[in-house]
């Protein structure tokens, strides 16, 4: 069970907004994680390194926060595997997240943050759609199938 954490949630959201704004302001790019990651495999010139550095930074940023939180006495902020959570569900979910974000050309960051901030109706529709699908799926998994 997770408790409501409005301040850290808002502060984290502002950092994400700052990141997206700096990337657009300096480099003219959209901070959409699925787009950045998928572009890694395109062999277009000059498209590899900035994407790799952004994703390496993302991993390092999360790691740095876990380290700081542990040393500042906020405890363990890192994710841990859920005991008994079906592995098949994780594989199916990974496939769906990959294929779906490619087909919709964006995920929570590309459509949900940057797209809405650009006042793109397409991104607003996408965001509403994946939120509704996510809520419906969680309901089925947790309350009808009883997987926690």
């Amino acid at each position, binding site marked *: 069970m997770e408790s409501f954490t409005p301040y850290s949630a808002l502060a984290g959201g502002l950092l994400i907004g700052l990141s997206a704004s700096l990337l657009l302001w300096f480099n003219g790019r959209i901070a959409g*994680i699925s787009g950045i990651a998928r572009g890694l495999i395109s062999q277009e010139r000059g498209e590899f390194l900035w994407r790799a550095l*952004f994703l390496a930074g993302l991993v390092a940023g999360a790691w740095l926060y876990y380290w700081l939180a542990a040393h500042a006495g906020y405890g363990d902020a890192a994710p841990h595997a859920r005991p008994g959570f079906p592995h098949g569900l994780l594989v199916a979910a990974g496939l769906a997240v990959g294929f*779906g974000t490619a*087909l919709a050309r964006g995920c929570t960051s590309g459509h949900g943050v940057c797209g809405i901030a650009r006042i*793109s*109706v397409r991104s607003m529709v996408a965001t509403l*759609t994946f939120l509704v*699908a996510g809520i419906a799926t969680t309901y089925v998994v947790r309350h009808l199938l009883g997987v926690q």
Partner: protein
Amino acid sequence: MRLLRYLVSLICGLLFGAGLALAGMTRPQKVLGFLDVAGHWDPSLIFVLGGAVAFATVAFHFIMRRSSPLLTQNFDLPKAKAIDSKLIAGASIFGLGWGLSGYCPGPAIALLAAPDAEALYFLPAMLAGWWLYAFVTHKSKHSNTR
């Protein structure tokens, strides 16, 4: 200039990853706590998305008034405007995977900062999903005469 661009990419990645972790969004249980509106509901994710969107909307408004970004010639923005079946199907399939697991692409990649058994199953599957899409679209491009 190019070096500076790479440095900005790295710093933006750091801010993004730290923001996700601080917000608790790298833990799938926290995300599912939001999506599970019928359970013990945790509205935190609204504050994450709200904070990010509020900041970016104001900042983008001023940034987009410029003729170009600071370090490159042009803004590289998505051109698609269509609200079509691909968008709805893609967002629905993505939402399904998100609700099944509690991972969207950012938190999934952030798993590399604290790899656990779930990363072993989810990450290769997500990569396979991206590859599958590229494979399918590549094939249809070659079989159709468009």
